[in-house]
């Protein structure tokens, strides 16, 4: 079953030099294991292909039901060097939430995950 990340998580992003950080937070505690399992480093790197030039780092914060990603080479040089509208990475949060997840139907039903409408 297809699930939109924006329907099961919220997020905030910011900058540190040419790196954007994106914190992704499960909307319900019981949905944290889904995002923790689905949002692997490789999956996020694939999602941002063509958007960032560097590598991705991934950290878990189960206490906050959150994951933190560092997206390197995301901000066109970063800070005042950047020519981007989003030089401070403020909207990488919702860019991350564009991700669409494929979740096992039985698991999705148990957890009450909202199905993506076509």
């Amino acid at each position, binding site marked *: 079953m297809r699930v939109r990340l924006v329907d099961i998580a919220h997020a905030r992003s910011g900058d540190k030099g040419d790196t954007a950080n994106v914190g992704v937070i499960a909307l319900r505690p019981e949905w944290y294991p889904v995002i923790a399992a689905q949002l692997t480093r490789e999956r996020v790197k694939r999602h941002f292909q063509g958007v960032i030039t560097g590598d991705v780092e991934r950290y878990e914060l189960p206490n906050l039901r959150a994951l933190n990603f560092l997206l390197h080479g995301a901000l066109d040089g970063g800070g*005042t060097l950047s020519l981007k*509208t989003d030089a401070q990475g403020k909207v990488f949060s919702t860019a991350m939430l564009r991700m669409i997840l494929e979740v096992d139907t039985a698991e999705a039903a148990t957890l009450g995950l909202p199905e993506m409408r076509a």
Partner: protein
Amino acid sequence: MTADRIVRVASGQGFWGDWLDAPRRQVEGGPVDYLMLDYLAEVTMSILQKQKERDPAMGYARDFIGAMESVLPAVAERGVRVIANAGGVNPEACAKAVLEVARAKGAAGKVRVGVVTGDDLLPRLDELLAAGHPLTHMDTGEPLSTVRDRVLSANAYIGSTPIVEALRRGANVVVTGRSTDTALTMAPLRHEFGWDANDWDRLAAGIIAGHIIECGAQCSGGNCLYDWRTIPDLANVGYPIVEARADGTFTVTKHPGTGGRINVPSVTEQCVYEMGDPRTYITPDVVADFTTINLADDGPNRVRVFGIKGRPATDKLKVSIAYRAGCKAVGTLVYAWPDALEKARLADRVLRERLAAMGLTFEHTLTEFVGVSAAHGPLAETSCEAPEVQLRIGVRSPDRRAVERFTREIAPLVLNGPPSVTGFAGGRPKVEEIVAYWPALVDKRVVETRVEVLS
């Protein structure tokens, strides 16, 4: 001191440019013991350095003087203490301006300003390099010598200790230069509760309290994605207040009757803001572990924070160095339906052809189509036709003349480029000098802070 004694630290400013009315609202809306004002972003110091070069009495955040005027009755009559990193590259001048306001308002003698200095490493830069501190760029590994001749400012991020010292010596306003944002909140807690300089868990709690409120309303409903439609009365958003206890636990709240919302999701969003490795949040005072934060709703607009752990601080301080890095300019035009994006794309090609024909080259050129892909790039869906698109082209170069020439090539497109174009009422784009940021580390023992209390 009783175990349930509470110290209230209010956040009144999340950056230089934040809501001017917030500091006054924080001291008038209910009980607070300390007002914390954060003015410094990464490149603010260099802007202030340039102002100081033009006028030796400048070089600090002028907004702070207006804020002080608005909270002066609370400071002089009700014992509220103010802590701000508004001193920039000239904390002494900032302190004098505060005392001047106090005199003018008849509060002379009731204001004692603690001044923290010693963060400014600019006069010592060559001495430090010669003594074997390479100040290499933390991300790229390049030595500072590659940009040494273009350096404008260099400041060590300093911790809570000198602020605690100023409070101990009776200051009711403390002005610092480049102290960390989080130290502004942690210092009064250390002072009030007498936390030891190696009480790592409590220090970490103070730092995380600071992290949660240092961006002002960003933890109390501002820029909050969670359930944003239902966040009430943002026009009167309440800035956050930490109610801290001696054991290192605290509650994040705001004044009654204010707008916005404080709940576990709003505080969680701020916890992850600008985060690196969550286990290792390094400050001059302590290494805080964000994976130990526990949050719990504790009634409306109250979130309890507990369980925080910390580890010993490192023997380094971060240094914020600013250097000249050429010039940039950004030009924009708006294209309207039909085929807005196609027209904007053609205008971009035409402009680039003309720049190339003139032999103008830039270190970097970036084109964005605002309304289509400026925010999310290729991740954005482009299936529906945009009713309008803003073409936004930026260039960067060490050669100011090349950037200036670029700024004259935007307007002609209105008459000699693709059709349905508007939005050039603002005139030629401005050429901006770039002051770039160079983060480095330095041994803690080479930085000596000083505290003076003026009245």
